[in-house]
């Protein structure tokens, strides 16, 4: 266990008071410290949105990138240096909406990346439009009569795509979130951690109270998170009771990096650029004569 304060930053978050993102920030720091990691061993990639400012509010390597585009950057970083603990942090609009294509494909690849989604069911930074997770009928400036699309279920999609670690947590319970995050980071492969995050300004439905009345912890039941079919049912459970914790975990599937031959010699960035005999280079020409 490293010291939590190592991860503190001097930057003051610009989030609204009581925003769920504060809880997530605390949980991320706790999980990293709990795993005995140091700031320079961690790379936090994020997109654009309220929550995606997170890397600025803690001390660790970070890449605050583009709206919807963080996952491929995270994968590139992991492929170049798999010694880094790579965490990708996105909003729901970011990760599931505009980023749906990258989201779909990263799951199939199973790189050893933890993806934390600050899911507030709304577009925060652009002042309150519907997000793909917004429940049908959600009223916003772009849906004054309520949205008419079915809400996306990211957990189900992760399962459908063969995800090896699928979890849900709640920003109102950072301690529990930190615990799940530690499992996610330890998990070898892509780990989706959907974090229920109250947006106190633009989402008056999915509030702290809303969740407090509904969430229950899977660890406290006799739920078996290695059962894919059970997971499927848990993934669609909502309304009265909302399960948090690990919905599904499958161990033993190799990560993407583990299957790349070149990386068996160590992280790419640490492999020497030179040192190959000149014949190796010359062979490139010889084969074309």
């Amino acid at each position, binding site marked *: 266990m490293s010291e939590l304060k190592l991860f503190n930053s001097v930057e003051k978050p610009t989030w609204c008071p009581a925003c769920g993102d504060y809880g997530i920030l605390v949980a991320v720091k706790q999980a990293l410290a709990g795993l005995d990691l140091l700031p320079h061993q961690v790379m936090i990639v994020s997109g654009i949105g309220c929550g995606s400012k997170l890397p600025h509010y803690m001390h660790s390597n*970070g890449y*605050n*990138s583009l709206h919807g*585009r963080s996952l491929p950057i995270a994968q590139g*970083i992991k492929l170049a240096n798999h010694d880094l603990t790579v965490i990708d942090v996105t909003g729901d609009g970011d990760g599931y909406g505009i980023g749906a294509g990258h989201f779909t494909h990263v799951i199939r690849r199973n790189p050893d990346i933890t993806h934390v989604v600050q899911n507030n069911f709304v577009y925060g930074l652009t002042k309150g439009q519907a997000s793909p997770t917004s429940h049908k009928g959600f009223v916003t400036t772009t849906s004054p009569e309520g949205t008419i699309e079915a809400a996306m279920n990211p957990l189900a999609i992760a399962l459908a795509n063969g995800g090896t670690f699928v979890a849900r947590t709640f920003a109102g319970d950072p301690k529990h979130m930190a615990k799940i995050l530690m499992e996610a980071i330890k998990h070898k492969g892509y780990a989706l951690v959907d974090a229920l995050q109250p947006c106190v300004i633009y989402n008056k439905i999915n509030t702290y109270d809303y969740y407090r009345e509904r969430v229950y912890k899977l660890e406290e039941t006799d739920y078996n998170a290695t059962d894919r079919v059970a997971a499927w049912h848990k993934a669609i459970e909502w309304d009265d009771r909302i399960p948090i914790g690990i919905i599904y975990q499958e161990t033993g599937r190799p990560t993407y990096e583990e299957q790349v031959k070149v990386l068996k010699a160590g992280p*790419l960035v640490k492999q020497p650029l030179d040192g190959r005999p000149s014949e190796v280079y010359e062979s490139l020409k010889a084969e074309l004569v």
Partner: protein
Amino acid sequence: MPKNNINIKIGGEAGQGVESGGAGLAKALSRGGLQIYGLSDYMSRIRGGYNFFQIRVSEGPVYVHTDPVNLVIAFNEEAAQAHLSEIVPGGGIIYDKGLKVDTSSWAGRQVQAFPMPLKEIAKQIGGSDIMLNTAALGGAVGVTDYEFERIADVITQNFKRKGPQVVESNVKVAEAAYNFAQQNYAPDFDWKLSPIPGPPRMLVNGNQAFCMGAIASGCRFIAGYPMTPATTILEYMTAKANKFGIVTKQTEDETAAILMAIGASHAGVRAMTATSGGGFCLMVEALGLAGCTETPIVVVLAQRGGPSTGLPTRTEQSDLQFAIHASHGEWPRIILTPGSIDQCFEAGLRAFNLAEKYQTPVIVLTDLYLTTSIRSVELDAFDFSKVKVDRGETLFPEDMDKLSNGYYRYQLSENGVSPRAIPGHEKGVYVAVGDEHNIDGSITEDAEVRNAQMQKRMQKLETARRDIRPPEYYGAKNPEVTFIGWGSTRGALMESVDRLKASGTRASMIHFADIWPFPEEATLKLLEQCRETIAVEQNYTGQLANLIREQTGFKVDRRINKYDGRQISPDEVVAAVRKGVAANV
């Protein structure tokens, strides 16, 4: 007729082996010391349609195809008719005698018909129809009096994987066709080929040349998504991955491709992506991110016919101004526009050094013509031993260890470049960000900081000028006419200069292989010495001519624009010059 000077076209439908046949013949000739320029013309379909492969042969170096054809090898009826108007008097067409070819007009054109029992030979001697191409190659070698052993060697090598039986049959088929052609047609065919001594040469296309440069320069990561004519870059790098320790990744789309490369580069590995116009469109947002976060990255944009899907298997130079201005906002970029296959190798070498030195995107603009044409290049021309990898102001762990002060990623500096720590060192922890930022990477909206960071980034463009080569000047000192071009037209322009000189006109060429930041002083200096200037471009709007005017105020006198997807030849250039007016070729 001069010896060892011939233009051969092999035509047929996709799937008939036009490309592989052409490549085999080219190899047989190249190994005999002859120099080759090979052009590939194909349609956007997997089977059928009409494709051809053109081989220009010479004793000296050749950098471009030419139009007049001496010999056609026709795999189908269409091929036997398609090139009639291009064939010079006395030229001939080899085809299977079973094809229904209407030769009635040929005599009038002084085109010789060389019908041969190709299928018969293939079947009777080789035991299978598929050896028809082998037979045709034998015929071509026979009619030109070239050494049979040369083609036999290539056949042997190509079919080795399939066992000695297949090799033997193919060689025998070729031999029979060779003999048939020797006896029946060689005496009447004027263009002859024979091996000459010379250093070993490879037959290499622009994409291969670029990749060799990239590998030598330490590129160790490529992410890409298939798109003609860039696909073969990803495929080449993949084939060499294990040998050179390269991680290669086919992604879900081009956006992911450039983003992964940005990620890999951010983590300290030399990284690239390659695509064509449509895929480049999907990369422009990420390009700007790299510009703002100051992440080195190399992007090959292999142009093809636009707009939109356009002419997907044909050539064009219509993305120059798009590349210069792609992505919103303003940030520095470097753009290379190699003019030959050899220069593609150089671009591969330089691009990664430039990207890391200036910590910003480098775009390498090529096109379908450059990437798919092959040329004989002496092995020594690609000198791996002289390659210098210059990682600029990158801070490696050993550099970081020595750091005593705090580390600020976006520290202001005179040349605009700030030392770049490779993430993973305890002293080099920072956040890269696409928002405007303070020197430590934290987000700011402060006007003064903004101005300073903007100036710092844009200063890199000024600093980079010292690595930008002036345009190449070729030809007469006191020219009557000067061609101006960029990228792939270089070969056609050089040869046009030579031809005009031969016919008594003092001509010259100004060619841009480094185009951004624009070398304005050097350009103006060259232009001042010119009389009539003609911009020759494979596009509609004359993008280089426009750029020169924007950057120097100089108005090019005339423009020759070709945008039908076929590369301009020296024949066309010279004809257009003689016409004396602005011409759309």
